[in-house]
């Protein structure tokens, strides 16, 4: 314990700067610095010289410059050159096992082949399977190939289901939904071919230090709502709306939703074997978490959580374990947005609160309805003026024609037994454990 009046030694200060002290000691030291001008001065002196600060300051103020398209091409080409120098792409033992299904290729630039696809690299892996960047020589196009983890669909029925779901998703044609080229099976592996979107996920964007501004939140939110709405009207429920499934295309203000309906594919067999469950606890709806009736309104809840995460930088329901998260999803209200980000306007807070209603009947009637609200407010920011009368922040319910939902989207009830719930919780724990070892997909 350090008494309040003890001034810090240089060594201690270095340790403090490098974050090497226990919380307890840290707190004591900070309390001391708080009141000791001598230590404050010493810290200033240690942290950096004036000249260094000046350069840093200029570098942050400096215009990042203009970069033409040739520059980005050159960057890509240059970065690829180090692997060209190697004889083959080197894989770790773990990756070798994962990618063991690829056929060898004589081209050293390729990881291998998968059917007619020339595989460049593995761009992601998750519980569901792995994602490859490949070239389709027939279309001469770069595509993303998602190969379903064989443990997830061990039976022919499960694989059939994957194919059925993927076909339904492939039928969605919308600007904000990733385009699926096809789905097929090869050597007992189910796979899905879709557009390759260069860019980052919304999850990565949220993790950046620069918070999203209101216009960005509305622009992204509106597009997600539109994509979800398009899917719903085709009878497809996403079931796993979360920032990791939203892609932000490089250099364009365009958003693409991926993995439509795939969360459902993982059935009981897969579940018991891999510890994977449909949906991501932090973004699940209460009905999904409790395995009650799930319909398109479950996506609305998850969409509310997505908006919340964009506004505050973190998902609304958090906890150390999946079980704790699920308990919060089901029984608790998230921390008020204004506590975390006071700049979010009241109307948006209200929209999110309504998406977050525990009872699906109390949520919005459709994703399209939310898209309209977001669009209206986005227009107001971009072209300030009397677009709509002030105060009409929440929409008049029913102003939009109530759209009839196709029968397929409604309710699929599953038997709700204690054993199933127990299993669910057990698998959540396993998944929690697995997730720590798995790279983000």
């Amino acid at each position, binding site marked *: 314990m350090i008494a309040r009046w003890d001034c810090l030694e240089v060594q201690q200060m270095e340790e403090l700067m490098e974050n090497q002290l226990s919380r307890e000691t840290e707190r004591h030291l900070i309390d001391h610095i*708080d009141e000791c001008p001598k230590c404050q001065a010493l810290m200033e002196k240690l942290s*950096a010289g004036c000249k260094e600060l000046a*350069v840093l300051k200029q*570098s942050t103020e400096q215009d990042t410059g203009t970069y033409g398209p040739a520059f980005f091409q050159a960057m890509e080409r240059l970065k690829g050159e180090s692997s060209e120098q*190697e004889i083959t792409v080197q894989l770790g033992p773990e990756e070798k096992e994962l990618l063991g299904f690829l056929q060898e290729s004589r081209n050293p630039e390729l990881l291998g082949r998968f059917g007619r696809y020339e595989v460049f690299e593995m761009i992601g892996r998750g519980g569901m399977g792995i994602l490859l960047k490949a070239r389709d020589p027939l279309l001469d196009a770069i595509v993303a190939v998602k190969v379903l983890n064989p443990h997830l669909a061990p039976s022919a029925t499960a694989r059939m289901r994957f194919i059925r779901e993927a076909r339904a998703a492939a039928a969605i044609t919308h600007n904000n939904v990733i385009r699926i080229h096809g789905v097929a099976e090869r050597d007992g592996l189910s796979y899905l071919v879709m557009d390759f979107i260069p860019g980052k996920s919304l999850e990565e964007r949220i993790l950046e*230090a620069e918070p999203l501004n209101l216009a960005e939140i509305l622009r992204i939110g509106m597009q997600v709502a539109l994509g979800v709405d398009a899917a719903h009207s085709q009878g497809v429920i996403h079931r796993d709306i979360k920032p990791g499934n939203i892609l932000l295309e490089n250099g364009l203000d365009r958003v693409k939703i991926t993995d439509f309906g795939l969360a459902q594919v993982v059935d009981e067999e897969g579940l018991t074997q891999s510890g994977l469950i449909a949906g991501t606890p932090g973004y699940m709806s209460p009905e999904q978490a409790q395995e009650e009736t799930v319909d398109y309104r479950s996506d609305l809840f998850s969409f509310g959580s997505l908006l919340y995460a964009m506004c505050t*930088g973190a998902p609304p329901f958090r906890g150390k374990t999946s079980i704790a998260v699920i308990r919060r999803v089901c029984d608790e209200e998230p921390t008020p947005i204004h506590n975390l980000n006071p700049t979010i306007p009241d109307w948006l807070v209200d929209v999110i609160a309504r998406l977050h209603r525990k009872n699906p009947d109390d949520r919005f009637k459709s994703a399209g309805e939310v898209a309209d609200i977001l669009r209206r407010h986005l227009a107001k920011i971009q072209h300030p003026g009397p677009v709509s009368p002030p105060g009409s922040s929440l929409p008049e319910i029913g102003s939009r024609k109530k759209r009839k939902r196709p029968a397929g989207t409604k309710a699929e009830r599953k038997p709700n037994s204690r054993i199933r719930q127990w299993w669910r919780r057990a698998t959540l724990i396993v998944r929690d454990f697995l997730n720590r070892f798995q790279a983000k997909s």
Partner: protein
Amino acid sequence: MDQFPLTRASLLFRLRDRRDSLAWSEFVEVYAPLVYQYARNHGVQDADAADVTQEVLRTCSHNLQKFQYDRNRGKFRSWLFTVVRTRLSNYRKSQYRHPQGRGDSEFSKHLEQFPAPMEDEEEQWVHEYQMRLFQWAATRIRSEFRRKTWRAFELTALEGKAPKDVAERLKMSVGAVYVAKTRVLKRIRTCVEKIDAESLEDFQ
């Protein structure tokens, strides 16, 4: 003993190993924008500036692997500057040989965009070089910190606000503001050091 008194972790050292593709792509990320911008600021258009950038970086890769960059002969950034200048002047010469169908008057105007080297040219280069390093480091480490910590750093270190005011504004203790500022700075320094420790010597 070691002709390259670079720490094992330093980027230039790692680049000697051809299999370290991570080091190479980091090198590209740090230096390609610097070289490209330098060329653009000297009147070279996008496509040509990209070509010059590629040539310069390839030369670096080649020489670093063959140990032809010798630290005793000067700092890395000066060596890099020589490479950049040489490439730029080669580019100018090739422009002269293939003036791409430009009219004479237009071409002489083009030549005027390349002033003769001036004494402070290297000084300017060093400045841009340092800025690029810090800019890269700051962008790179930013996500390691909580928003509030970063904001405290920005307000104190970059905007020169008094820690007491910042503490009030961000609802932190003054001590915490000091710690935030110094921690971020320290991290930036470490990051720059890994890329090019020589450049930190300027600030000692």
